[in-house]
C-alpha cells in the first residue's frame, strides 16, 4: 500500500461518506451563509464598500464553518472507535493525517466556491479580478487552515470541551493565514496587480509547507493513544 494511495484511500472514504450522508455540506453551507447574512444586516453595504469589508466577512464565514468541518471530521472517527481501526492498519499515521487534510480542504473549498458567488450577489459586488489567482489564493489559505486545524482537532476531539477548544487554539495559530487570506482577497477584489500580493501568497505557501511538514512529523505523538 503506497503512501499516496493510503492518503487517497482515507480522503476518498471521507468523501464517499459525505456524498452519501450530505451531513456536512448542508450544515457548513448554511452556517457560512448565516454569517454572511448577519454581516449584511450588521453593516450598511450601500455605504461601506464591499471591497473593503468583504474579504474579512468572507473569511470569517469560511473559518467558522471550517471549524465545524474539522470537528465533524474527527468526531466521525471517534464514534464506534473507528479511528482505532485505521490506527491498527499498516499505514503511516501521517498518511491518515494528510488524507484528512485533503478531505477537509475539499469540503471547505466547496463551501467557498458556493459562497463567493452568493456574496457577490448579496452585496452587489462586481468581481473582475483574475479567477485563477483567486482560486490559488483560496486553496493555499484553506490548506494551511486545514493543516493546522486537523493536527489540533486530533487532540481537541478527545477532550470534553473539544468544540470550544479547537477555535481557541486554532484561531491564534492561524492568524498568519487569516491575515494573508484577507489581504490577498482584498487586493484581488480591488483588481490590483499580482505584485501587490505576491508576497502574501508566498507567506501562505510557506506556512502551508512548514506546518504540513511539522504535522507529518508530530502526528504520531498526537494520535498515539
Amino acid at each position, binding site marked *: 500500500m503506497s503512501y499516496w494511495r493510503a492518503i487517497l484511500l482515507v480522503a476518498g472514504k471521507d468523501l*464517499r461518506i459525505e456524498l452519501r450522508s450530505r451531513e456536512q455540506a448542508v450544515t457548513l453551507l448554511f452556517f457560512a451563509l448565516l454569517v454572511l447574512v448577519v454581516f449584511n444586516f450588521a453593516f450598511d453595504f450601500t455605504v461601506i464598500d464591499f471591497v473593503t469589508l468583504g474579504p474579512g466577512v468572507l473569511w470569517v464565514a469560511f473559518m467558522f464553518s471550517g471549524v465545524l468541518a474539522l470537528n465533524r471530521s474527527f468526531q466521525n472517527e471517534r464514534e464506534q472507535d473507528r479511528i482505532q481501526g485505521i490506527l*491498527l492498519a*499498516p499505514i503511516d499515521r501521517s498518511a491518515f493525517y494528510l488524507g484528512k487534510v485533503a478531505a477537509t480542504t475539499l469540503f471547505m473549498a466547496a463551501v467557498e466556491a458556493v459562497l463567493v458567488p452568493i456574496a457577490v450577489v448579496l452585496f452587489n459586488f462586481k468581481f473582475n479580478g483574475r479567477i485563477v489567482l483567486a482560486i490559488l489564493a483560496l486553496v493555499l489559505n484553506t490548506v494551511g487552515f486545514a493543516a493546522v486545524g486537523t493536527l489540533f482537532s486530533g487532540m481537541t476531539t478527545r477532550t470534553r470541551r473539544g468544540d470550544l477548544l479547537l477555535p481557541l487554539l486554532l484561531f491564534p495559530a492561524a492568524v498568519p493565514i487569516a491575515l494573508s487570506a484577507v489581504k490577498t482577497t482584498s487586493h484581488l477584489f480591488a483588481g490590483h496587480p499580482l505584485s501587490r500580493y505576491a508576497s502574501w501568497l508566498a507567506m501562505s505557501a510557506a506556512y502551508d509547507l512548514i506546518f504540513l511538514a511539522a504535522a507529518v512529523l508530530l502526528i504520531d505523538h498526537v494520535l498515539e493513544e
Partner: protein
Amino acid sequence: MSPGPRGKPAPGGFVPAIEARGLARSFGVVGALEPLDLTVPAGESVLLLGPNGAGKSTLLRLLATLLRPTSGSLRLFGESPGTGEAAMRRRIGFLSHQTFLYDHLTGRENLLFYGRLYGLPDPGGAAEEALRAARLEPRGGDCVGTYSRGMQQRLAIARALLHGPDLVLLDEPFTGLDRESARHLESRLREEAALGRTQVIATHDYGRSLGASDRVLLLRDGVVALDRKAREVEPREIEALLDGPAPADPVRRDS
C-alpha cells in the same frame, strides 16, 4: 469442557508469537501495567482475565502496537514493532466491543475499505468471501447503519479477520452480543485457532471461553496474579483471585 485444539500447525515455526520482557506502561505517574514478562508460543489461545482497571486493555493495546510501552521490550513473531511497525500490523487483528465500522458506508464498502487499507491483493474477493462467512451477503449493499446490532458485530468480526492475521487480539468482544452472534464469534475463533492463529482474548465472561483456551492469564492492578494452563485452573480459583485482595508480588508462570 472440551479441550482446546492441540497439535495444530503453528505459522512461524518455533518463533513465539509474543515475547515481552519487562513490558510496562504508565500514564504519567500512574502505572497501568507493571513490568511484565510474557512468552506466548505461536498458536496458543490465551484467556486474559481481571477486574476493571487491571490492565487488560492496556496490555492488549500494547500488543496491538496501538500504545508504546514506557519501558521494557516487546517482540511479535520475533520482530520488534518499533522498526517496521506498519508492516507488523498486517499480522495483527483486533476486535473490541466497538465495531470500527462506518454507518454511512455499506457492509461491502466497509470491508473493501479495510481490505485496501491492509493492502490485500484482491480486496473485492476477500470482501465477498467475508460477507459470505458472516452470512451477510444479502445485506452487503445496505448501509451498516441499517444493520441490527448482531449483524454489525458479525461484520466487525469479519473486518477484524479479513486480512488473515496471525495474532488475534480481542478486548471484551462478547459485550452486548446476542446469543446467535456470540455463538458465531465463538465458532470463528475456534476456526482461527484451528488454523494455528495465536489468540489473546480479554473478557469478563470466562465461563464460555475457559474451555476453548490453552492458557489463563489473570491481571490485578497491572500485575500478573495467575499464569497457568487453562485445564489446570478451577473457576473457583479464578473467582477468588478476582474478588480477593491484590497480590503483592507478580506470579511467575508455572510450567
